[in-house]
């Protein structure tokens, strides 16, 4: 033990892991995250997948990344720039070194920095990646990770490849030591994971332990760090990605409504993992069906909703574009349906593995005719759970399709999720009727304007509905002009009325005045919240309002907007919420837009807000 090593306390730390698709960076990141979360830190993560499955090893396009921020208070985002960069090869270093904080450091696997690899990564000829110029004068810790791993496992009866595969646990060991985290979480995990191949569990544990020792003894580090546990609400926690949270939220919603969940879907990045999550829960009698295409996905869900299931379809932008016609059918036949769009970079195939918020207007208007539906958006990975339930609540109560927007950043990112007590969950009501007395298919509840839901098979309630305009009461096909006018306006009114049934728009209010309100929606929540909180600490008159419900807007929206001198709308598109606000409210907004496949940094928000102060 090196006695000169001290422990330094930190509020939060950002680590970025970077290596080939095969290097296990996602796994390493998740293990670190788990250990940190169990330690009590608040954690938020974000993986960054390459566009190709396994693009050529060693090249920049093959880089798989994972970033985690952990802190002793709410961190809200995976962080803008890393304090620590872990690069398992030259490409990982080259791709990320510019993002590393000036006072941060990189840990690299020295053994991979061969001439061939350096060239493959794309360094100019004769450049030494570790030279101060190439590393932009940032600190680099060049650890012989591969060779140390091999050495650690010299006694193990395993082939070379299998041994090499343990090297990420060496790295993990270094980090555990560095941040004074217990390896217990990972040790337990390995034992379960390799229950049937104990030698692999042992090998990885050994490597990890060696990594910890190496960190301690190598002399590279003058101090250890500690990030104290965050003062979170007591309870049981688990770590969830947004897509897992959404999937679990949907299954939970079915329980809450006393219905069966039906998910008709088609794989598409970055939404597929919701389908995969739901498919795991067959013992909840969910039916998660991979259909032949997106249209069949939504249509099977419509058929299931008509039959009385809580029906959902999940997809990403291009899939939504395909589902527009069918959504219209759900609108006119007024059946409950949730459409989840995990947005990605567009237009067209665009940047499938990058995040974006550019499907908002499509969500609002991507259907023929006057075809209104509620649109809501989740603001963090864990919030995907809550908004999945909220989407189901609205769909069932109002007999309407509902669009839930998340995005790749939320869907793949993870955070600690406090498992709620059942009592904290909303009760979901639905409009199922079975009494033939006075029943007409388009009889509406006078308050919600929802029509009754009848399961085919219910005795005595036979009826026929369809996509043609229908009589306002009987639901029979009607070509009457006035009836059509009435129906179009009624469908709109039903959605508008939902404003009475949703939470007010909340503001993180500055005590120092109403100069600037930064407005966001969806996944920009964390970055905006962090930056605005800083402004408020600095005594600046900057507040933050964040929309979860966009169609309809909360009732108090205009009241809130009117209070501030300047309204900045920050979104990852060319200003879509800005357009909606300007169209609906007599206010002027300043769009702050970014379309780079990744969230705002605090700096980018400053750049605009500072000029308004």
């Amino acid at each position, binding site marked *: 033990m090196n006695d000169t090593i001290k422990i330094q306390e930190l509020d939060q730390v950002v680590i970025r892991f970077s290596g080939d698709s095969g290097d296990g960076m996602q796994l390493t990141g998740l293990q670190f995250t788990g250990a940190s979360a169990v330690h009590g830190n608040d954690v938020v993560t974000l993986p960054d997948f390459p566009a190709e499955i396994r693009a050529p090893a060693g090249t920049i396009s093959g880089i798989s990344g994972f970033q985690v921020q952990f802190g002793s208070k709410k961190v809200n985002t995976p962080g803008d720039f890393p304090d620590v960069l872990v690069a398992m090869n030259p490409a990982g270093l080259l791709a990320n070194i510019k993002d590393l904080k000036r006072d941060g450091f990189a840990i690299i696997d020295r053994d991979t920095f061969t001439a061939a690899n350096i060239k493959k990564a794309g360094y100019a000829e004769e450049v030494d990646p570790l030279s101060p110029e190439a590393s932009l004068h940032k600190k680099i810790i060049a650890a012989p990770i591969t060779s140390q791993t091999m050495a650690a496992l010299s006694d193990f009866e395993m082939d070379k490849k299998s041994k090499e595969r343990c090297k990420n646990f060496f790295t993990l060991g270094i980090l555990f030591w560095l941040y004074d985290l217990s390896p217990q979480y990972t040790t337990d995990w390995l034992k379960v994971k390799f229950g049937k191949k104990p030698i692999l569990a042992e090998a990885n544990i050994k490597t990890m332990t060696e990594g910890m020792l190496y960190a301690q003894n190598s002399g590279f580090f003058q101090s250890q760090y500690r990030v104290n546990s965050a003062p979170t609400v007591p309870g049981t926690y688990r770590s969830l990605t947004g897509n897992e949270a959404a999937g679990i939220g949907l299954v939970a919603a079915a329980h809450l409504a006393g219905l069966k969940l039906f998910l008709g879907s088609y794989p598409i990045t970055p939404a597929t993992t919701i389908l995969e999550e739901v498919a795991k829960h067959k013992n909840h*009698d969910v039916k998660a069906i991979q259909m032949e295409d997106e249209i069949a996905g939504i249509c099977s869900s419509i058929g299931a909703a008509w039959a009385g299931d809580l029906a959902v379809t999940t997809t990403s932008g291009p899939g939504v574009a395909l589902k527009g016609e069918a959504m219209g059918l759900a609108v006119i036949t007024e059946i409950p349906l949730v459409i989840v769009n995990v947005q990605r970079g567009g237009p067209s195939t665009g940047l499938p593995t990058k995040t974006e918020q550019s499907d908002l207007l499509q969500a609002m208007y991507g259907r023929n005719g006057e075809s209104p539906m509620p649109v809501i958006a989740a603001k963090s990975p864990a919030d995907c759970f809550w908004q999945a339930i909220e989407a189901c609540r609205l769909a069932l109560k109002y007999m309407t399709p509902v669009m839930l927007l998340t995005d790749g950043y939320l869907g793949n990112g993870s955070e600690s999720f406090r498992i709620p007590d059942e009592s904290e969950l909303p009760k979901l009501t639905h409009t199922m009727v079975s009494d033939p007395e006075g029943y007409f298919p388009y009889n509406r509840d006078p308050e919600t304007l929802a029509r009754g839901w009848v399961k085919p098979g219910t005795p005595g309630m036979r009826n026929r*509905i369809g996509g043609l305009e229908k009589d306002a009461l009987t639901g029979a096909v009607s070509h009457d002009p006035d009836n059509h006018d009435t129906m179009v306006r009624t469908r709109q009114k039903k959605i508008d009325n939902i404003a009475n049934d949703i939470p007010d728009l909340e503001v993180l209010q500055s005590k120092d005045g109403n100069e600037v309100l930064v407005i966001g929606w969806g996944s920009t929540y964390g970055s905006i919240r962090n930056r605005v909180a800083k402004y408020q600490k600095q005594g600046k008159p900057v507040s933050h309002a964040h929309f979860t419900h966009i169609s309809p807007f909360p009732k108090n929206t205009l009241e809130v907007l009117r209070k501030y001198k300047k309204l900045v709308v920050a979104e990852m598109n060319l200003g879509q919420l800005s357009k909606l606000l300007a169209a609906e409210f007599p206010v002027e907004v300043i769009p702050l837009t970014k379309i780079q496949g990744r969230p705002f940094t605090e700096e980018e928000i400053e750049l605009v807000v500072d000029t308004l102060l």
Partner: protein
Amino acid sequence: MNAESKYKKQDFVPDGAVKWCAGCGDFSILAQTQKVLAATGRSPDEFAFISGIGCSSRFPYYVNSYGYHTIHGRALAIATGTKIANPELSVWVAMGDGDGLAIGGNHFLHAVRRNLDMVVILMDNQIYGLTKGQFSPTSIRGQKTKTAPTGTMEDPIDPVALTLGLNGTFVARTTDRSMKQMSEILMRAYEHKGFSMVQILQNCPIFNDGAHDLATAKATRDDHTLVLEHGQKMIFGKDKDKAIVRDGFKPKVVNVADVNEAEILVHDEKDSGLGHFLAQMQGSDYPIPLGVFIERTAPTIDQEYRTSNDAEIERLGKGTLNNLLHQGETWKV
């Protein structure tokens, strides 16, 4: 068939006018369907009729049961959800040749291979009726329509051959004029556990009048159709003078007089090889086979879902909200 059904055809006739053109072949298909429904002995409440868009797709409005008139081409995808959500329902899909095989082709393909347990009535008038007379995927090559003023340039799809190529489990063809055969086939389709594809040659007197005359007109039908009956020899013609024999791997029409009786093929609905073989009878060299090409049993996907969910419930216990929320790695703070 339930001989003492307590329902009558009339129980399946809803209020409201049927709005097809006078003389439309869809009328007789509707009437036979209603009769068969009554004969099943099941309550009208237990049927779900689903359709897309087209003249034929108005069908659900005209059957007094649960009905969903959806969007063009998507009936089978919607019915997939309905059937899997509630396997107890007797699900019927009514479709036109355009609805089912043009825009709806992909769902057709996948519904067949999934062997969804439902009856599909394909009303094949070889034309788009509702949009006033454009060619459809079953229109014969060279047919002149408003969108093919010099004649179509495509070979038609033979729905029977297509369904067989996808290993369909119940494949049949009849006509809007073959009342008895139609109702027998519909009843068997209802009874079949699996995807029952019933192609019905249907006349559209407005836009494609007489397209099926060879198969339906009194003067021609005996010489131009081959009625397939299980266990029966394939003999046809007004004078029962023509027969089908095997010529290599193809069927061939011969005069009964010219062949050894043993050479004449005998129909066997259970022989899927024979079904594929007969599906080659397309075009003017052959009579049009009517009847059941194939019936065989195979797992249906709606039941497979049911069974596999039950197995998972058995294996893991019935999922509760609580164990949903708490599964996986958790920690306490």
